[in-house]
């Protein structure tokens, strides 16, 4: 690749970075226009706003010589000009044309540089000309547009972030990953220094020279914390980067399902680690699809039950004590209690639901779906269990609240970042493991008579519920058994599931830097990664979600044995 190629590639990247959000906003505004016109709202302020944005995209596209984008933006501008002049021409068909063009523009901008789109743009231009001709005043409208174009230029709004453009540099996200990795190593080394220092303190006692070292160690810890915050800050993106695609998605889904749906989003500015955002889109799309297709009633049913014909789906995000909460709520029919009960019984899940104190949690169980028929939109045999699994996989939780006849809402709680996880370090048979704090409900001193046995499996009464308490050594397959009895159990939880785990010692809390599992290690069920502790030893990070998924019937230990033998 020549340097000119590189320069063009860099310009093209800049173009996409600037124009993709703009064209997404255009497409969203067209969806909103369609909704307003259909419900008879004038939405007078929207057309001028969208025209301004279109103009910016058109100008940037022309500068890059990206003719298809330029032509589509131009055609959309013409339609907007005409519709501003001719309110009578506003309606289903003109809105559909705008929405289609908006979607096309987003696709073209997203794939800019691939050289495609000439035909799609030409075809769209053809349809716009047909539309303009059909409305009949095509000649005069276009002429006026041409007259006004000079004036337009001044009023075109600037793209977002142009003010700060001088201070913005582009960085490959992989470099930020490397930076985080290096930071992680620094944190491990710091805790090694800290630990060595504490040992030294214990050995030699108070010494004047040591107080300097003490100050340095404490200062270093503060610096590492600050560095962590700064590095994390560089990885954050507003959650609107994921939400941005949803208005059009919901519109298309509603169109196919012949429903009227309004999507209301808020908190789009809430920041999240890009690594999490990348994996959040799919579960959210799944929940949105469910809401449109199953959650909201048909138009007739809504009117019959005294609701507005248009259903509302709310998508809210907010930061809350170091986590991000996302609420997705619809005003549809809610869960069908009878059907859920029947299905839960059929699957033998009834007990699990009762246990958890939330009978609706069963809808996250594998194989659970009450949809009567498979539609082309949802219900492709992929249930909420997959959603719950991916949310859990991100260290998050998902909860459901159903108000029959009034709606269904899901609440997701997610960590801000994946790379550094606050963990409880436990010891079982002289082996140490890290358990993410977000999955530790409580640590309990195990009184001798508190653990009972049912079918040779431990159970205990915890906060009024009987929960299974597994032996840590058995679950983790430790090789040498410590002589002393296990003195503690920790309660691992995820969503509504809980399980106790007997351990020998609780070492303490620590921010651990998550390192992956080498493929040579296979796919252990109970371990999600590794980390390096302060003393330099490697510890496995327990996978709380999958530990909770295992059947209580001794599966963990026998599973491990079988695997060992077959390997």
């Amino acid at each position, binding site marked *: 690749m020549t340097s000119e190629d590189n320069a063009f590639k860099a310009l093209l990247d800049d173009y996409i970075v600037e124009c993709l959000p703009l064209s997404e906003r255009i497409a969203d505004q067209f969806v909103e226009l369609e909704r307003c016109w259909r419900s008879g709202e004038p939405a007078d302020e929207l057309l001028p706003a969208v025209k301004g944005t279109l103009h910016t995209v058109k100008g940037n596209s022309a500068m890059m010589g990206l003719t298809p984008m330029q032509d589509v933006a131009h055609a959309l501008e013409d339609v907007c000009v005409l519709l501003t002049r001719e309110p009578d021409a506003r309606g289903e068909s003109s809105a559909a044309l705008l929405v289609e063009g908006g979607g096309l523009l987003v696709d073209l901008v997203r794939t800019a540089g691939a050289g495609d789109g000439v035909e799609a743009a030409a075809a769209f231009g053809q349809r716009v000309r047909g539309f303009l001709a059909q409305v009949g005043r095509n000649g005069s409208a276009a002429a006026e547009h041409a007259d006004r174009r000079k004036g337009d230029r001044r009023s075109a709004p600037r793209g977002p972030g142009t003010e700060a453009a001088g201070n913005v540099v582009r960085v490959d996200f992989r470099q930020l990953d490397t930076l985080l990795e290096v930071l992680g190593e620094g944190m491990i080394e710091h805790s090694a220094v800290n630990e060595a220092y504490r040992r030294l303190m214990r050995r030699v006692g108070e010494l004047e020279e040591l107080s300097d070292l003490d100050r340095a160690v404490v200062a270093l810890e503060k610096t590492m914390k600050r560095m962590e915050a700064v590095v994390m800050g560089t990885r954050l993106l507003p959650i609107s980067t994921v939400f941005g695609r949803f208005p059009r998605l919901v519109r298309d889904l509603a169109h196919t399902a012949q429903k009227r749906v309004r999507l209301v989003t808020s908190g789009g500015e809430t920041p999240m680690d890009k690594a999490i955002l990348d994996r959040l889109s799919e579960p959210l799309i799944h929940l949105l699809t469910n809401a449109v297709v199953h959650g909201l009633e048909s138009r007739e049913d809504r009117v019959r039950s005294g609701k507005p014909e248009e259903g509302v789906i709310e998508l809210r995000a907010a930061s809350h004590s170091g986590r991000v909460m996302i609420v997705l709520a619809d005003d549809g029919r809610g869960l069908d209690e009878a059907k859920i009960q029947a299905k839960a019984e059929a699957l033998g899940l009834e007990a699990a639901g009762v246990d958890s104190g939330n009978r609706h949690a069963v809808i996250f169980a594998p194989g659970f779906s009450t949809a009567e028929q498979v539609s082309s939109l949802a219900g492709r045999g992929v249930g909420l269990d997959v959603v719950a699994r991916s949310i859990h996989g991100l260290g998050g939780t998902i909860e459901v609240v159903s108000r029959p006849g009034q709606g269904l809402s899901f609440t997701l709680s997610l960590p801000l970042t994946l790379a550094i996880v606050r963990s409880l370090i436990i010891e079982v048979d002289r082996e140490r493991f890290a358990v993410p704090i977000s999955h530790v409900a409580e640590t309990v001193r195990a009184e001798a008579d508190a653990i009972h046995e049912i079918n040779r499996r431990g159970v205990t009464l915890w906060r009024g519920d009987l929960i299974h308490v597994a032996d840590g050594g058995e679950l983790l397959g430790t090789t040498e058994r410590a002589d002393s009895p296990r003195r503690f159990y920790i309660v691992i939880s995820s969503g509504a599931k809980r399980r106790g785990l007997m351990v020998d010692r609780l070492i303490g809390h620590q921010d651990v830097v998550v390192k992956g599992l080498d493929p040579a290690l296979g796919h*252990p069920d109970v371990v999600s990664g590794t980390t390096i502790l302060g003393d330099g*030893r490697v510890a496995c990070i327990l996978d709380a979600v999958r530990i909770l998924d295992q059947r209580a019937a001794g599966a963990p230990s026998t599973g*491990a044995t079988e695997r060992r033998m077959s390997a």
Partner: protein
Amino acid sequence: MTRDDLLRFADSVAKDAAPAAGTAVPGPELHLVTFALDREEFGVPVDQVREIIRVGEITRVPQAPAHVRGVANLRGRILAVVEIRTRLGLTPGVLSPRSRIIVVEIEGRVLGILVDAVLQVVKVPVEAVTAAPDEVLSPQTDYISGVARWNSRLIILLDVEKVLLLND
């Protein structure tokens, strides 16, 4: 010992082993790191060896395959350590002061091989390599790529990729 140290060491060994006259033109040679498992000597190509380290703490990983001993901290990086003895059908090894981890790098993947002892870095003439007798081989031993008979020694040559199951 880093790879550069290894290569320097190998060169010095090769010089010592060269014929006294020093005039013979050497044929193609294999550059090997050899190590001991029980009473046998095995060899792996030196250009696949990144370094050789003493055995520190190895952390067992629950439910890992039987031929994986665990993971170790290699200067802040997690190194999976393969128990080559069980992979070769021997009993698991007992750690001794002579135990070493041979860190290999193949196509960007870095893995450790736990061996009883590292013996030598040698240059062996290619012509000294023969196939192992058919009678002792089986489909499960396709990681043996040959046997070098050299200076009254017998070095079993391992195909590192196959022995580490890198393609699984």
